[in-house]
C-alpha cells in the first residue's frame, strides 16, 4: 500500500460512566440560580419563596417540635400499613406462586381489586374504622398488599425450573424446596416490589392525611396551603423528598446485603 493512514476510531460511547462532580454541580447550580432569582426579585416571593426561606421554615419546625410530630405521625402510619400489607401480600403471593389452586382462586380477585386507586377506599374505611389511625393504616396496607402479591408470585415464576428439578433429584422435601430454592430465588423480585410499595405507601399516607388528620406531613402541607404559608408548604414537600430518599437508601442497603450473590 502506498498511502498509510491510521484507522479511524469509531467505537466508544453508549456506556454510562460514573460521574462524581456533575450531579453535585447541577444540584448546587439549580438551587443557586433559584436563590439568585428570588434575591433579585425575579420570582414573586408570595408564590415561590427562595430556598433559604424554605430552609428557615424547616428550621422553625425543628425548633418548635412540629417537625418531629408531623414526620413521626406519617412514619408511624407508613410503617404500620406497609408492614401489615407486605406481610399479608407475601403470604398470599407466595401461596399463589407455589399452589396452582391458590393462584386460580386468587388471580381474579387480585386482578379486579388491583387497579382501584386505593385512596378511593378511604371513605369506606372511615365508615368502618372511624376517622382515626386504623382507616389510614388500612388504606396504606391495602395499597401495599396487591403489588406485593403480584411481585411475589411473578418472582416465584421467575425462579429457574431447573433449580427445582435439581432439588427434586436430590430428594429435597417440598418444604425445603420452598425455603431453600423458591424463596431465595424469588428474593430479587420481591425486593423490587418493595421499592414500588414504598412509594405507594408514601403517596397514600399524604393523601389520607389530607383527607382527615391533625398531624402528619400531608395534613401539615394542606393547612399551610389553607393559611397561604407557601414557605411552610414547600418545607413539607421538601420533607417528603427527603423521606423518599431515606426510604430508597434503606431499601438499597437491604438489597445490597441480601442480594450480594447477584
Amino acid at each position: 500500500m502506498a498511502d498509510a493512514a491510521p484507522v479511524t476510531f469509531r467505537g466508544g460511547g453508549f456506556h454510562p460512566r460514573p460521574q462524581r462532580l456533575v450531579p453535585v454541580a447541577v444540584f448546587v447550580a439549580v438551587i443557586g440560580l433559584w436563590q439568585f432569582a428570588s434575591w433579585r426579585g425575579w420570582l414573586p416571593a408570595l408564590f415561590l419563596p427562595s430556598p433559604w426561606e424554605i430552609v428557615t421554615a424547616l428550621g422553625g419546625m425543628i425548633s418548635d417540635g412540629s417537625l418531629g410530630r408531623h414526620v413521626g405521625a406519617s412514619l408511624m402510619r407508613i410503617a404500620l400499613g406497609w408492614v401489615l400489607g407486605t406481610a399479608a401480600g407475601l403470604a398470599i403471593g407466595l401461596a399463589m406462586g407455589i399452589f396452582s389452586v391458590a393462584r386460580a382462586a386468587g388471580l381474579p380477585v387480585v386482578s379486579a381489586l388491583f387497579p382501584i386507586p386505593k385512596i378511593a377506599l378511604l371513605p369506606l374505611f372511615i365508615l368502618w374504622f372511624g376517622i382515626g389511625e386504623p382507616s389510614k393504616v388500612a388504606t396504606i396496607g391495602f395499597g401495599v398488599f396487591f403489588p406485593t402479591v403480584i411481585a411475589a408470585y411473578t418472582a416465584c415464576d421467575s425462579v429457574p425450573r431447573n433449580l427445582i428439578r435439581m432439588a427434586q433429584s436430590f430428594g429435597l422435601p417440598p418444604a425445603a424446596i420452598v425455603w431453600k430454592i423458591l424463596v431465595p430465588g424469588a428474593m430479587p423480585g420481591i425486593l423490587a416490589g418493595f421499592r414500588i410499595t414504598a412509594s405507594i405507601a408514601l403517596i397514600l399516607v399524604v393523601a389520607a392525611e389530607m383527607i382527615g388528620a391533625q398531624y402528619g406531613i400531608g395534613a401539615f402541607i394542606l393547612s399551610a396551603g389553607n393559611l397561604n404559608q407557601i414557605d411552610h408548604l414547600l418545607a413539607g414537600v421538601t420533607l417528603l423528598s427527603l423521606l423518599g430518599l431515606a426510604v430508597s437508601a434503606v431499601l438499597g442497603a437491604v438489597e445490597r446485603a441480601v442480594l450480594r450473590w447477584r
Partner: protein
Amino acid sequence: MDLRLEGITHSYDGLLALDGIDLEVRDGETVAIIGPSGCGKSTLLGIVGGLLKPSAGRVLAIGAPRADSLNPFTYVFQDFALLPWRNVAANVALALEHHGLSRAERRERVAAALALTGLGEFAAALPKQLSGGMRQRVGIARALVVRPAVLLLDEPLSALDAQTRELLMEDLLAIWARERSTRLYVTHNLDEAARLADRVIVLSRRPGRIREIVRIDMPVAERGAPTALPVVAGVREKLWALIRDEARDAEREVQHG
C-alpha cells in the same frame, strides 16, 4: 446395582419422543448415550432418575445400592444447576441437608468432595465468581457427596470450551477410577463417548429407538495414551458414520419446525 430398562416409551402430548427402549446396564459400567438432537436422550435420563414418568415401560434397579448411598440416582446437569446465592461448600452441602447428618459430619463429607474435585480453596466462593469448568466441578462434587449408585450425566461438559472439557474429562476419569458407580452419560460429543464409555448406545432420531450398541474393548484408563489415538479415532469414525445422516435430517427438521 444393575439397571434394567424395559420398553421405555414416552410421548409429550401426542409427540412420541422415545419408543420401546430396552437396555441392561451392569454395575460399575459407563454407558454413553448419543443420538441426533431431539431424539429423547434427556427424556430417557429423566425417566431413569425418576424425574419423569414414562408413558409405558419401567426402570428396574437390580440389587441394593451401596449401603452408604444417600441418593442412589444422582444427576449432573448441563447448566450446572447451582444455587447462585450459596457458596461452593453450601451448594455441595445442599445435597446432605435433609439426611439427618450432624453438622460436623456434613462438613467433613463436603470437604472430602471438594478435595476430590480440586475445589478445596474455592469453598467460600460464589458461583458467579467461578469459571464454567469450576462450576461444573461443583456440580460433580455435589453429585459425589451423596455417594450415588447411578450417576446420570446429561451433557455435563457441553457448556464448556474445548480445553476445559478436556481437563474435566481427565478429572472424571480419575474420580471414576476411585469411586465406584454406574454411569449413564448423555452427550453430543463423540470424543467424550469414545474416551469415557464402556458401551455407546446410539439412538435413532425421534422417536428415539436403540439403533446400535457399540462396545469399546480398550480399557478406559488406557485411552488417554498417545498409542490409543487410532483406536479412539476409529470408534469416533464408527459412531459418526452411524449418526451422520440422521443428525443432518434432525437438524433440518429443527430448522423447519
